[in-house]
C-alpha cells in the first residue's frame, strides 16, 4: 500500500469522524421543538382531505346521512383542536 492510499483512508476517517462529532462539540441543546408545527400542519392537511373525501362519499351515496353528519362533526372538532395547537406553538 502506498502513502497516498494510506493518507486517503486517514482523511476519509478523520473527515467522517469530524462531521459526526461536530454537533456534540457545541453547547447543550434541547430538542428545538417538542410539538412540531410541521407535524400539526400535516395532520391538519390530512384531516381536511378526509373531510373532502367524506363530502364526496356522501354525495355519491356511499355513506348514510346520519353517519355523514357524525363523522363530519368529529373531523371538524379534531381540526379545530389542531388549529388551536398550531396557534399555541406559533
Amino acid at each position, binding site marked *: *500500500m502506498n502513502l497516498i492510499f494510506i493518507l486517503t483512508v486517514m482523511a476519509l476517517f478523520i473527515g467522517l469522524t469530524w462531521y459526526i462529532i461536530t454537533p456534540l462539540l457545541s453547547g447543550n*441543546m*434541547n*430538542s428545538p421543538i417538542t410539538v412540531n408545527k410541521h407535524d400539526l400542519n400535516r395532520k391538519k392537511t390530512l384531516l381536511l382531505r378526509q373531510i373532502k373525501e367524506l363530502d*364526496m362519499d356522501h354525495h*355519491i351515496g*356511499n355513506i348514510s346521512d346520519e353517519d355523514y353528519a357524525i363523522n363530519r362533526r368529529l373531523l371538524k372538532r379534531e381540526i379545530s383542536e389542531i388549529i388551536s395547537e398550531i396557534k399555541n406553538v406559533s
Partner: protein
Amino acid sequence: MTPVLGSISLSLALGISAVSILLFSLFLKSEDYRFYLAGWRAALSVSVLSILATFFLLNELLISNFDIKYVAHYTSLETPTFYKITALWAGQSGSLLFWLFILSVYSLIVLAQYKNSFTKLMPWVSIVLVAVQSFFLILVNFVENPFSPTDADFVVVNGNGLNPLLQNLTMAIHPPTLYLGYVGFTVPFAFAIAALVTKDTGSLWVRSIRRWTLIAWLFQSGGIILGGWWAYQELGWGGYWAWDPVENASFMPWLTGTAFLHSIIIQEKKGMLKTWNMILILLTFTLCIFGTFLTRSGVMSSVHSFAVSNLGPVFLGFIAILLVVCTFLIIIRFPILKSEKQIESFTSRESGFLFNNVIFCVICFAVFWGTIFPVLSEAIRGEKITVGAPFFNQVNVPIGLMLLFLTGVGPLLVWRRTSKEAFIKNFTIPVLTGLVIFVFCFSMGLRNATLISFPLCGFVTMAILIEFQRGIKSRVTRFNESFLGALKMLISKNRSRYGGYIVHLGIMFMFIGFSGNAFDSETEFAIKTGETKEFGGYNFELVNIQPIERPNHIAWIAGLNVWNFHHELVTTLFPEKRVYFYKDPNPDKRQPHSELDIYSTLNKDIYSIFSGVDMEQQIAYLKIMINPLVWWVWFGGYVLIFGTMISLWPAKDSE
C-alpha cells in the same frame, strides 16, 4: 486500491452504524438534541459509505478486475458493458451489496425529508433503518464480501462470464425493480416499529407512510410483472408464472402489502383494524427478508445446501429477531391498538375490505405452505416432496376468483351498512352484466374456471365504471363541469381512490389473460427448409436457417413464415438457437440457449422455440405454442402501474 477502499467503506459503515444507534439511544435517554444531530449525521454517513462501496464494485466490474472473485465469476472480457453493470446483482455478494445500496438510497431520502418532522417517530425510524443496514453490512463484511480476492495462485486473464439467461434487457431491469420493492417496505416497517414504541398508533403514521408503501408496492408489482415477462420471453416453456420458490418469495410480501394498502383505508376512515394493520406491515417486511433468505440461502434447492451455506443461519437468526421484536411490541401495545369502532354489518364496505384482507392472507398462507413444504418434508422425513404448480393452481384459482369478485363488490357497498334499496340499486347492473357474459360463455361451450372468471371480469368492470359514473355525476351537479372536465377533476382531486380503481381495472385485465391459460396448445416438430407444417389453424413454413456470429455467441436463426388458412402471411418469426462461450476449448463450458420469437396479438400469441438444428440436413427442431389472451396480462400490468402512479401523484389541496 479500489477494492481495498470498497472493503474499508463497508467496514467503516458497519462501525458508524453502531455509533449511530448509540447516539440515537443517548438522545432518547437525555433528549439532548446534539445526540440526535450527531446520530443523524452518522446515519447519513452509513448510507453514503454503502453507496460508495457499491460504486467501487461497479468500477471493478467495468474495468474487468479479475483479481476480485466476484468480477471473475460473473463477467468476462467478452461480456458487453451493459451486462457488466447488471452483473452487480447477478451473484450472491453483489446482490446483497445491491440490497444495501437501495436501502441506503431510501434511508438518505427519509433522513433528509423528515429531519425536522415526525419529531416523536424519527429517532426510532432512524434506529430501525440503520439496524437493517447493519444486518446487511454484517453480511457483506463477514459472510459474503463482494471484494474478496480470487482464490487462484495464477493470474486470472479472463472471467467465467455472465449466465446467458441473464443477458436480457428485461432481466437487467427485473431484479433492481423487485429489490426496490423488497427494500422499500423497510420504510413503512420502520415507521410501524416507531409508532409502536412511541405509542403513537393513531392514523397519522398510517397516512404518512401510505406513499412509501405505494412506492414499494409499485416496484414490487413491476418487478413481479417483469419477472413474468422475462420468464415468458426467455425461458422457453411458454408460461410466465411457474410457482417457483423464488417467484413465490416475491409474491408473498406483495400479497400482504396489498392487504395492508386496503386495510389502512379502514383505519384512516374508521379507526378500525389497528392491530391488523400493524401485523400486516410487520409481516410484509419479514416476508421480504424471508424472500431474500429463500433466494439467497440455497435452502430451496436442498436443506443440505442450506447447511453448508453461511447465509442461511444468519438470515434465519435475523428473521427470528424480527418476529420476536414485532410480536413483543404488538403484545405490549395491544391495549392502545384496540379499534375505536366495530364492524356493524356484513353488508358494509368495511366488511368488504376485511374479507378482501382475509383472502389475501389465505392466498399468502397457501403460497407460503406450498413453498416451504419441500424443505419441511426433507428436514423431517428425509424425503423431499415437491409441491408443484397443480397444487398452487388448485388452491389459488378458486380463492383468486373470490378475490376478483370482492374487487367488484367493494366499491358497490356503502360504509357502515348497505340498505336493501342501495344494495339493489348498486348491484343490479354489474350482476346483470356478469350474467349476460356467463350465458354467452356457456353458449360458447366454456365449462372450466373461465366460465366463472370472464363473467366476474364483466361484473368488476361494470362496478368500477359505475363508481366513476357516480363520481362524475356528483361533480357535474356540484361544480357544473362538463363530463370530461368532471372525469379529469375527479381523478386529480381524488388520486388515491380513483388511481386505486384503475389498478383494479389492471388486475381485471390480468385475470382475462390468466383465463387464457385454459386454452393453451402446443406441438413439436422437425422441419426441413421449404417444408410446411400445420398447427392451431396456421401453416408454418421454414424459409431458411442462417448462421450468424456475434461478439459473445454464435446463433442459427430460423426464418419461419406463418400463414393462415386463407393463405395470407400472418407474420415471419425468427427464433434463434445460440451457443454462448463457443470459443471455449472446453466443450462443457459452451452453453446452448434458445432465443424465442413471439407474435403477439390481442387474442393470442404464436410462440416459437428453436430447440435444435441439423445444418447438414437443413432441419430445424421447433416447438410452437398458441397461447390465447397473454397480451392482456402485460396490458393489465401497464394499467396497474399507471393507476398506482396516479395514486402516488401528490394531491393538490386547493379546492
